[in-house]
Protein backbone atom coordinates (compact mmCIF):
# COMPACT_ATOMS: atom_id res chain seq x y z
CA UNK A 1 0.00 0.00 0.00
CA UNK A 2 2.95 2.23 -0.37
CA UNK A 3 2.11 5.47 -2.09
CA UNK A 4 5.01 5.21 -4.41
CA UNK A 5 7.08 2.14 -3.90
CA UNK A 6 9.62 2.86 -6.57
CA UNK A 7 10.18 6.35 -5.26
CA UNK A 8 10.50 4.94 -1.75
CA UNK A 9 13.19 2.52 -2.83
CA UNK A 10 15.15 5.32 -4.38
CA UNK A 11 14.85 7.40 -1.25
CA UNK A 12 16.04 4.54 0.91
CA UNK A 13 18.95 3.90 -1.42
CA UNK A 14 19.92 7.55 -1.32
CA UNK A 15 19.69 7.56 2.43
CA UNK A 16 21.97 4.57 2.62
CA UNK A 17 24.39 6.39 0.39
CA UNK A 18 24.67 9.03 3.04
CA UNK A 19 22.15 11.56 1.82
CA UNK A 20 20.19 11.65 5.04
CA UNK A 21 18.23 14.72 4.07
CA UNK A 22 15.92 12.54 1.97
CA UNK A 23 14.46 11.36 5.23
CA UNK A 24 12.44 14.54 5.26
CA UNK A 25 10.70 13.38 2.11
CA UNK A 26 9.90 10.02 3.69
CA UNK A 27 8.30 11.88 6.58
CA UNK A 28 6.27 13.94 4.14
CA UNK A 29 5.00 10.77 2.54
CA UNK A 30 4.12 8.80 5.62
CA UNK A 31 3.35 11.17 8.48
CA UNK A 32 -0.36 11.16 7.83
CA UNK A 33 -0.78 7.43 7.28
CA UNK A 34 1.21 6.58 10.38
CA UNK A 35 -0.66 9.18 12.33
CA UNK A 36 -3.95 7.62 11.33
CA UNK A 37 -2.75 4.28 12.58
CA UNK A 38 -1.56 5.69 15.87
CA UNK A 39 -4.66 7.77 16.37
CA UNK A 40 -6.85 4.81 15.54
CA UNK A 41 -5.16 2.80 18.25
CA UNK A 42 -4.76 5.47 20.89
CA UNK A 43 -7.69 7.83 20.32
CA UNK A 44 -5.57 10.74 21.41
CA UNK A 45 -4.12 13.31 19.05
CA UNK A 46 -1.16 14.23 21.16
CA UNK A 47 -0.19 10.64 21.84
CA UNK A 48 -0.57 9.84 18.17
CA UNK A 49 1.78 12.64 17.16
CA UNK A 50 4.31 11.51 19.74
CA UNK A 51 4.19 7.97 18.47
CA UNK A 52 4.73 9.02 14.87
CA UNK A 53 7.64 11.25 15.86
CA UNK A 54 9.16 8.39 17.81
CA UNK A 55 8.57 6.09 14.86
CA UNK A 56 10.63 8.38 12.67
CA UNK A 57 13.38 8.66 15.24
CA UNK A 58 13.67 4.89 15.32
CA UNK A 59 13.38 4.58 11.60
CA UNK A 60 16.08 7.14 11.07
CA UNK A 61 18.43 5.15 13.21
CA UNK A 62 17.53 1.83 11.70
CA UNK A 63 17.14 2.75 8.08
CA UNK A 64 20.69 1.90 7.18
CA UNK A 65 20.00 -1.64 8.30
CA UNK A 66 16.65 -1.76 6.59
CA UNK A 67 16.65 -4.47 3.96
CA UNK A 68 14.54 -3.88 0.97
CA UNK A 69 12.64 -7.15 1.23
CA UNK A 70 9.57 -5.52 2.62
CA UNK A 71 8.37 -2.13 1.61
CA UNK A 72 9.16 0.86 3.71
CA UNK A 73 5.59 1.50 4.76
CA UNK A 74 5.22 -2.02 6.10
CA UNK A 75 8.27 -1.42 8.20
CA UNK A 76 7.17 2.02 9.39
CA UNK A 77 3.68 0.82 10.24
CA UNK A 78 5.16 -2.00 12.27
CA UNK A 79 7.25 0.43 14.28
CA UNK A 80 4.23 2.68 14.80
CA UNK A 81 2.10 -0.19 16.00
CA UNK A 82 4.77 -1.37 18.41
CA UNK A 83 5.21 2.10 19.81
CA UNK A 84 1.48 2.66 20.03
CA UNK A 85 1.18 -0.61 21.90
CA UNK A 86 3.82 0.50 24.37
CA UNK A 87 2.25 3.89 24.72
CA UNK A 88 -1.13 2.35 25.31
CA UNK A 89 0.14 0.19 28.14
CA UNK A 90 2.23 2.99 29.50
CA UNK A 91 -0.80 5.26 29.65
CA UNK A 92 -2.83 2.57 31.32
CA UNK A 93 -0.23 2.00 33.98
CA UNK A 94 0.08 5.68 34.65
CA UNK A 95 -3.55 6.54 34.34
CA UNK A 96 -5.14 8.19 31.38
CA UNK A 97 -4.18 11.57 30.08
CA UNK A 98 -0.49 11.30 30.73
CA UNK A 99 1.46 12.19 27.68
CA UNK A 100 5.05 11.20 27.65
CA UNK A 101 7.15 10.56 24.65
CA UNK A 102 8.17 6.94 24.70
CA UNK A 103 11.44 8.00 23.40
CA UNK A 104 12.03 10.11 26.44
CA UNK A 105 10.55 7.56 28.72
CA UNK A 106 12.62 4.69 27.51
CA UNK A 107 15.85 6.58 27.25
CA UNK A 108 15.37 8.41 30.50
CA UNK A 109 16.16 11.66 28.79
CA UNK A 110 13.63 14.01 30.19
CA UNK A 111 15.03 17.20 28.80
CA UNK A 112 13.50 20.05 30.66
CA UNK A 113 13.94 22.26 27.64
CA UNK A 114 11.48 20.11 25.78
CA UNK A 115 8.45 21.66 27.23
CA UNK A 116 9.27 25.20 26.33
CA UNK A 117 8.90 24.65 22.65
CA UNK A 118 6.17 23.49 20.40
CA UNK A 119 3.28 25.70 21.21
CA UNK A 120 0.76 23.33 19.71
CA UNK A 121 -1.93 25.13 17.86
CA UNK A 122 -4.97 24.05 19.70
CA UNK A 123 -6.72 22.73 16.71
CA UNK A 124 -8.19 19.33 16.98
CA UNK A 125 -7.66 17.16 13.99
CA UNK A 126 -10.15 14.64 12.88
CA UNK A 127 -13.25 14.38 10.81
CA UNK A 128 -15.38 17.39 10.24
CA UNK A 129 -17.32 17.17 13.34
CA UNK A 130 -20.83 17.91 14.19
CA UNK A 131 -22.06 17.24 17.66
CA UNK A 132 -23.40 13.97 16.39
CA UNK A 133 -20.15 13.11 14.64
CA UNK A 134 -18.21 13.72 17.80
CA UNK A 135 -20.59 11.54 19.72
CA UNK A 136 -20.25 8.72 17.23
CA UNK A 137 -16.50 9.05 17.26
CA UNK A 138 -16.43 8.87 21.00
CA UNK A 139 -18.50 5.73 20.95
CA UNK A 140 -16.29 4.13 18.34
CA UNK A 141 -13.24 5.00 20.40
CA UNK A 142 -14.85 3.47 23.45
CA UNK A 143 -15.82 0.38 21.51
CA UNK A 144 -12.28 -0.02 20.29
CA UNK A 145 -11.18 0.05 23.89
CA UNK A 146 -13.19 -3.08 24.47
CA UNK A 147 -11.46 -5.00 21.71
CA UNK A 148 -8.37 -7.07 22.34
CA UNK A 149 -5.27 -5.33 21.08
CA UNK A 150 -4.59 -7.68 18.19
CA UNK A 151 -8.10 -7.20 16.84
CA UNK A 152 -7.87 -3.45 17.19
CA UNK A 153 -4.61 -3.34 15.26
CA UNK A 154 -5.88 -5.56 12.50
CA UNK A 155 -9.08 -3.53 12.18
CA UNK A 156 -7.23 -0.24 11.90
CA UNK A 157 -4.89 -1.45 9.19
CA UNK A 158 -7.76 -2.89 7.20
CA UNK A 159 -10.43 -0.24 7.63
CA UNK A 160 -8.31 2.88 7.76
CA UNK A 161 -5.73 1.98 5.14
CA UNK A 162 -7.57 -0.68 3.14
CA UNK A 163 -4.48 -2.81 3.36
CA UNK A 164 -4.50 -6.25 1.75
CA UNK A 165 -4.47 -9.17 4.15
CA UNK A 166 -0.99 -10.08 3.09
CA UNK A 167 0.49 -6.74 4.06
CA UNK A 168 -1.37 -6.76 7.36
CA UNK A 169 0.04 -10.20 8.06
CA UNK A 170 3.54 -8.90 7.43
CA UNK A 171 3.08 -5.89 9.66
CA UNK A 172 1.57 -7.86 12.51
CA UNK A 173 3.72 -10.90 11.88
CA UNK A 174 0.88 -13.34 11.76
CA UNK A 175 -0.68 -15.67 9.22
CA UNK A 176 -3.12 -14.47 6.60
CA UNK A 177 -5.76 -16.78 8.05
CA UNK A 178 -5.25 -15.06 11.38
CA UNK A 179 -5.86 -11.67 9.78
CA UNK A 180 -9.08 -13.00 8.36
CA UNK A 181 -10.35 -14.40 11.61
CA UNK A 182 -9.29 -11.36 13.60
CA UNK A 183 -11.19 -9.11 11.26
CA UNK A 184 -14.27 -11.23 11.60
CA UNK A 185 -14.05 -11.32 15.37
CA UNK A 186 -13.25 -7.64 15.63
CA UNK A 187 -16.08 -6.65 13.37
CA UNK A 188 -18.54 -8.82 15.15
CA UNK A 189 -17.58 -7.49 18.55
CA UNK A 190 -17.51 -3.90 17.41
CA UNK A 191 -20.84 -4.29 15.74
CA UNK A 192 -22.38 -5.55 18.95
CA UNK A 193 -20.92 -2.78 21.03
CA UNK A 194 -21.99 -0.11 18.56
CA UNK A 195 -25.46 -1.52 18.30
CA UNK A 196 -25.76 -1.48 22.05
CA UNK A 197 -24.77 2.17 22.10
CA UNK A 198 -27.06 3.02 19.21
CA UNK A 199 -24.46 3.99 16.63
CA UNK A 200 -25.31 1.23 14.19
Amino acid at each position, binding site marked *: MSLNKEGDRELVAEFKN*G*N*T*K*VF*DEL*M*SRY*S*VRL*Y*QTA*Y*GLLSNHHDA*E*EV*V*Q*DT*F*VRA*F*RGLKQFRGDSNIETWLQRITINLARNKYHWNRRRGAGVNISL*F*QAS*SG*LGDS*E*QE*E*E*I*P*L*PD*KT*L*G*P*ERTVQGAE*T*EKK*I*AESFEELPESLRET*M*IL*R*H*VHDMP*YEEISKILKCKIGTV*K*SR*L*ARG*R*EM*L*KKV*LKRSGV*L
Partner: protein
Amino acid sequence: MKLNENNLKQCPTFEEISTYFDGINEVPGIDLHIEECAACRKTLQDIAELDAAIKARANIPQEDIPQLTARIKDGFYRKNELEPAKYGMPFPRVVLHLAAALAICSAVVYVAVQGLTDDMRSANIADPAQDAVAASQIDKFPYYTSNGSGVLNSNGSENSVEVENLIPANYGSSEPVMFNGGVQAGAQKINPVIIRPKVDHVWVVKNISKADDTLKRMIKNSGTPLQLRQDGSVITMQGRLNKLELVKLVRACSNAGFELVSPVAPQPEQHYFKGNSGEPVNYQAQFLVNKGSR
Protein backbone atom coordinates in the same frame (compact mmCIF):
# COMPACT_ATOMS: atom_id res chain seq x y z
CA MET B 1 -34.69 -17.30 2.09
CA LYS B 2 -35.11 -18.54 -1.40
CA LEU B 3 -32.87 -21.29 -2.62
CA ASN B 4 -31.77 -22.16 -6.06
CA GLU B 5 -29.12 -24.55 -7.22
CA ASN B 6 -26.39 -21.90 -7.27
CA ASN B 7 -27.10 -20.83 -3.76
CA LEU B 8 -25.59 -22.05 -0.56
CA LYS B 9 -27.74 -24.43 1.35
CA GLN B 10 -27.30 -22.36 4.46
CA CYS B 11 -26.13 -18.88 5.38
CA PRO B 12 -22.39 -18.30 5.23
CA THR B 13 -20.59 -17.66 8.50
CA PHE B 14 -19.90 -14.14 9.69
CA GLU B 15 -16.24 -14.66 8.86
CA GLU B 16 -17.10 -15.66 5.33
CA ILE B 17 -19.23 -12.57 4.86
CA SER B 18 -16.53 -10.47 6.46
CA THR B 19 -13.95 -11.82 4.02
CA TYR B 20 -16.36 -11.34 1.16
CA PHE B 21 -16.71 -7.71 2.20
CA ASP B 22 -12.97 -7.33 1.70
CA GLY B 23 -13.32 -8.43 -1.88
CA ILE B 24 -12.19 -12.01 -1.41
CA ASN B 25 -14.67 -14.50 -2.72
CA GLU B 26 -13.75 -17.81 -1.18
CA VAL B 27 -17.15 -19.42 -0.94
CA PRO B 28 -18.68 -20.37 -4.24
CA GLY B 29 -22.14 -18.92 -4.56
CA ILE B 30 -21.81 -16.51 -1.67
CA ASP B 31 -22.54 -13.49 -3.81
CA LEU B 32 -25.76 -14.94 -5.10
CA HIS B 33 -26.74 -16.00 -1.64
CA ILE B 34 -26.19 -12.59 -0.15
CA GLU B 35 -28.11 -11.01 -2.97
CA GLU B 36 -31.15 -13.02 -2.04
CA CYS B 37 -30.83 -13.36 1.72
CA ALA B 38 -31.97 -10.36 3.73
CA ALA B 39 -30.19 -11.45 6.90
CA CYS B 40 -26.83 -11.79 5.19
CA ARG B 41 -27.38 -8.55 3.30
CA LYS B 42 -27.92 -6.86 6.63
CA THR B 43 -24.71 -8.34 7.99
CA LEU B 44 -22.81 -7.06 4.98
CA GLN B 45 -24.47 -3.69 5.36
CA ASP B 46 -23.43 -3.53 9.03
CA ILE B 47 -19.83 -4.20 8.12
CA ALA B 48 -19.99 -1.48 5.49
CA GLU B 49 -21.32 0.99 8.05
CA LEU B 50 -18.64 -0.02 10.48
CA ASP B 51 -16.06 0.52 7.80
CA ALA B 52 -17.44 3.95 6.99
CA ALA B 53 -17.52 4.96 10.64
CA ILE B 54 -13.92 3.92 11.25
CA LYS B 55 -12.77 5.67 8.10
CA ALA B 56 -14.62 8.84 9.04
CA ARG B 57 -12.95 8.81 12.41
CA ALA B 58 -9.51 8.50 10.84
CA ASN B 59 -10.14 11.13 8.23
CA ILE B 60 -7.94 14.19 8.42
CA PRO B 61 -9.21 17.29 6.64
CA GLN B 62 -6.95 18.22 3.77
CA GLU B 63 -6.27 21.66 5.21
CA ASP B 64 -4.94 20.20 8.45
CA ILE B 65 -2.35 17.99 6.80
CA PRO B 66 0.45 20.56 6.35
CA GLN B 67 0.30 21.54 10.00
CA LEU B 68 0.15 17.99 11.21
CA THR B 69 3.11 17.00 9.08
CA ALA B 70 5.07 20.03 10.21
CA ARG B 71 4.46 19.24 13.88
CA ILE B 72 5.53 15.65 13.39
CA LYS B 73 8.70 16.72 11.62
CA ASP B 74 9.47 19.30 14.28
CA GLY B 75 9.13 16.65 16.94
CA PHE B 76 11.33 14.30 15.01
CA TYR B 77 14.13 16.83 14.62
CA ARG B 78 13.85 17.81 18.25
CA LYS B 79 13.97 14.25 19.52
CA ASN B 80 16.54 13.06 17.12
CA GLU B 81 19.11 15.24 18.74
CA LEU B 82 18.65 13.79 22.18
CA GLU B 83 20.98 10.89 21.93
CA PRO B 84 23.40 11.84 19.23
CA ALA B 85 26.32 9.48 19.39
CA LYS B 86 24.66 6.46 20.89
CA TYR B 87 22.99 5.01 17.85
CA GLY B 88 25.49 6.17 15.34
CA MET B 89 23.89 9.40 14.68
CA PRO B 90 22.05 11.13 11.98
CA PHE B 91 23.01 14.50 10.82
CA PRO B 92 26.02 16.13 12.33
CA ARG B 93 27.75 13.45 14.19
CA VAL B 94 30.64 13.73 16.50
CA VAL B 95 32.87 10.83 17.16
CA LEU B 96 35.00 11.70 20.05
CA HIS B 97 38.09 9.86 20.97
CA LEU B 98 38.49 11.94 24.00
CA ALA B 99 40.10 9.54 26.36
CA ALA B 100 43.29 9.59 24.40
CA ALA B 101 42.91 13.21 23.53
CA LEU B 102 42.59 14.30 27.11
CA ALA B 103 45.71 12.41 28.07
CA ILE B 104 47.75 14.62 25.85
CA CYS B 105 45.69 17.66 26.45
CA SER B 106 47.65 20.24 24.56
CA ALA B 107 48.62 17.98 21.74
CA VAL B 108 47.08 18.55 18.39
CA VAL B 109 43.65 17.13 17.90
CA TYR B 110 42.29 16.77 14.45
CA VAL B 111 38.82 17.60 13.47
CA ALA B 112 37.91 15.92 10.28
CA VAL B 113 35.00 17.66 8.73
CA GLN B 114 33.14 15.52 6.33
CA GLY B 115 30.20 16.05 4.12
CA LEU B 116 30.58 19.77 3.99
CA THR B 117 29.36 19.93 0.48
CA ASP B 118 26.24 18.17 1.55
CA ASP B 119 23.83 21.02 1.31
CA MET B 120 21.23 20.49 3.91
CA ARG B 121 19.70 23.88 3.59
CA SER B 122 17.68 22.82 0.64
CA ALA B 123 15.87 20.18 2.62
CA ASN B 124 13.30 21.30 5.11
CA ILE B 125 15.57 20.51 7.94
CA ALA B 126 14.67 22.68 10.81
CA ASP B 127 16.76 21.49 13.63
CA PRO B 128 19.45 18.95 13.00
CA ALA B 129 21.33 17.49 15.90
CA GLN B 130 22.18 20.31 18.13
CA ASP B 131 24.76 18.75 20.31
CA ALA B 132 27.42 18.07 17.78
CA VAL B 133 30.53 20.10 18.41
CA ALA B 134 29.32 21.68 21.58
CA ALA B 135 31.93 24.20 22.54
CA SER B 136 32.59 22.35 25.73
CA GLN B 137 33.69 19.32 23.82
CA ILE B 138 36.52 20.85 21.91
CA ASP B 139 37.37 24.15 23.45
CA LYS B 140 40.41 22.69 25.14
CA PHE B 141 42.06 21.75 21.94
CA PRO B 142 43.51 23.50 19.05
CA TYR B 143 41.95 21.69 16.20
CA TYR B 144 41.71 21.43 12.49
CA THR B 145 38.69 22.28 10.54
CA SER B 146 37.81 22.64 6.95
CA ASN B 147 38.48 25.85 5.23
CA GLY B 148 35.74 25.90 2.69
CA SER B 149 34.71 22.53 1.51
CA GLY B 150 37.88 20.62 2.06
CA VAL B 151 37.95 17.53 4.16
CA LEU B 152 40.71 16.99 6.61
CA ASN B 153 41.64 13.49 7.42
CA SER B 154 42.80 12.49 10.81
CA ASN B 155 44.67 9.60 9.23
CA GLY B 156 43.17 7.30 11.75
CA SER B 157 44.81 9.08 14.63
CA GLU B 158 43.10 8.03 17.76
CA ASN B 159 43.43 11.53 19.09
CA SER B 160 40.85 12.79 16.74
CA VAL B 161 37.58 14.58 16.88
CA GLU B 162 35.59 13.70 13.86
CA VAL B 163 32.71 15.79 12.73
CA GLU B 164 30.48 14.46 10.03
CA ASN B 165 27.93 16.14 7.89
CA LEU B 166 28.45 19.57 9.21
CA ILE B 167 26.04 22.09 7.85
CA PRO B 168 27.80 24.44 5.50
CA ALA B 169 27.28 28.05 6.30
CA ASN B 170 25.95 30.11 3.50
CA TYR B 171 27.23 33.56 4.07
CA GLY B 172 25.55 36.76 3.16
CA SER B 173 21.93 35.77 3.42
CA SER B 174 19.75 38.77 2.94
CA GLU B 175 16.49 37.12 3.87
CA PRO B 176 14.62 39.03 6.56
CA VAL B 177 14.56 37.40 9.97
CA MET B 178 11.15 36.07 10.98
CA PHE B 179 9.71 34.34 13.98
CA ASN B 180 6.58 32.29 13.65
CA GLY B 181 5.31 33.58 16.96
CA GLY B 182 4.78 36.92 15.26
CA VAL B 183 3.54 35.69 11.91
CA GLN B 184 -0.14 35.50 11.09
CA ALA B 185 -1.60 32.05 11.37
CA GLY B 186 -2.36 32.03 7.67
CA ALA B 187 1.26 32.33 6.65
CA GLN B 188 2.21 29.11 4.98
CA LYS B 189 5.77 28.94 6.14
CA ILE B 190 6.77 25.54 7.28
CA ASN B 191 9.51 24.18 9.46
CA PRO B 192 10.66 27.15 11.43
CA VAL B 193 14.07 26.55 12.94
CA ILE B 194 14.23 25.98 16.67
CA ILE B 195 16.65 28.07 18.68
CA ARG B 196 17.31 26.38 21.97
CA PRO B 197 17.33 28.33 25.23
CA LYS B 198 21.02 27.55 25.44
CA VAL B 199 23.22 27.81 22.38
CA ASP B 200 26.87 26.79 22.10
CA HIS B 201 28.90 27.78 19.07
CA VAL B 202 32.43 27.35 17.89
CA TRP B 203 33.77 29.83 15.38
CA VAL B 204 37.03 29.65 13.50
CA VAL B 205 38.76 32.96 12.97
CA LYS B 206 41.87 33.84 11.02
CA ASN B 207 43.52 36.13 13.49
CA ILE B 208 42.71 36.13 17.16
CA SER B 209 43.54 39.73 17.96
CA LYS B 210 41.66 41.08 14.97
CA ALA B 211 38.74 38.92 15.94
CA ASP B 212 38.90 40.33 19.43
CA ASP B 213 38.66 43.86 18.07
CA THR B 214 35.82 42.94 15.78
CA LEU B 215 33.88 41.26 18.55
CA LYS B 216 34.33 44.18 20.92
CA ARG B 217 33.03 46.53 18.27
CA MET B 218 30.14 44.25 17.53
CA ILE B 219 29.08 44.03 21.14
CA LYS B 220 29.32 47.75 21.56
CA ASN B 221 27.21 48.40 18.47
CA SER B 222 24.56 45.90 19.39
CA GLY B 223 24.25 47.04 22.97
CA THR B 224 23.96 43.45 24.15
CA PRO B 225 25.42 42.45 27.52
CA LEU B 226 27.93 39.95 26.21
CA GLN B 227 31.19 39.23 27.97
CA LEU B 228 34.45 38.52 26.22
CA ARG B 229 37.37 36.68 27.69
CA GLN B 230 40.56 35.74 25.99
CA ASP B 231 42.68 32.79 27.11
CA GLY B 232 45.67 32.46 24.90
CA SER B 233 44.38 31.74 21.47
CA VAL B 234 40.76 31.22 22.44
CA ILE B 235 38.17 33.93 22.90
CA THR B 236 35.09 33.03 24.85
CA MET B 237 31.95 35.06 24.43
CA GLN B 238 29.15 34.61 26.87
CA GLY B 239 25.89 36.20 27.82
CA ARG B 240 22.18 36.35 27.65
CA LEU B 241 20.43 37.91 24.71
CA ASN B 242 17.19 37.47 22.89
CA LYS B 243 16.68 35.32 19.84
CA LEU B 244 16.59 38.16 17.36
CA GLU B 245 19.79 39.64 18.77
CA LEU B 246 21.43 36.27 18.53
CA VAL B 247 20.42 35.81 14.92
CA LYS B 248 21.85 39.22 14.12
CA LEU B 249 25.03 38.49 16.01
CA VAL B 250 25.52 35.24 14.14
CA ARG B 251 25.06 36.98 10.83
CA ALA B 252 27.46 39.71 11.85
CA CYS B 253 30.11 37.16 12.81
CA SER B 254 29.60 35.42 9.53
CA ASN B 255 29.90 38.69 7.63
CA ALA B 256 33.09 39.37 9.51
CA GLY B 257 34.51 36.25 7.91
CA PHE B 258 34.31 33.92 10.87
CA GLU B 259 33.50 30.35 10.07
CA LEU B 260 30.82 28.71 12.16
CA VAL B 261 31.66 25.06 12.66
CA SER B 262 28.89 24.08 15.05
CA PRO B 263 25.66 23.04 13.40
CA VAL B 264 23.59 24.44 16.23
CA ALA B 265 20.88 26.89 15.20
CA PRO B 266 20.87 29.75 14.47
CA GLN B 267 23.12 29.51 11.45
CA PRO B 268 23.92 32.59 9.40
CA GLU B 269 21.73 31.57 6.50
CA GLN B 270 18.67 30.70 8.54
CA HIS B 271 15.91 33.23 8.65
CA TYR B 272 12.68 31.65 9.82
CA PHE B 273 12.50 30.68 13.46
CA LYS B 274 10.17 29.20 15.95
CA GLY B 275 8.80 31.24 18.79
CA ASN B 276 9.16 34.94 19.45
CA SER B 277 12.11 37.19 18.75
CA GLY B 278 12.18 38.41 22.34
CA GLU B 279 12.70 35.02 23.94
CA PRO B 280 15.94 34.79 25.90
CA VAL B 281 18.91 32.65 24.97
CA ASN B 282 22.01 31.83 26.93
CA TYR B 283 24.76 32.10 24.41
CA GLN B 284 28.28 30.87 24.60
CA ALA B 285 30.75 30.95 21.77
CA GLN B 286 34.36 30.06 21.34
CA PHE B 287 36.47 31.79 18.75
CA LEU B 288 39.60 29.93 17.78
CA VAL B 289 42.26 30.10 15.18
CA ASN B 290 42.65 27.04 13.09
CA LYS B 291 46.14 26.06 14.01
CA GLY B 292 46.17 22.96 11.98
CA SER B 293 48.09 22.48 8.84
CA ARG B 294 47.24 20.00 6.20
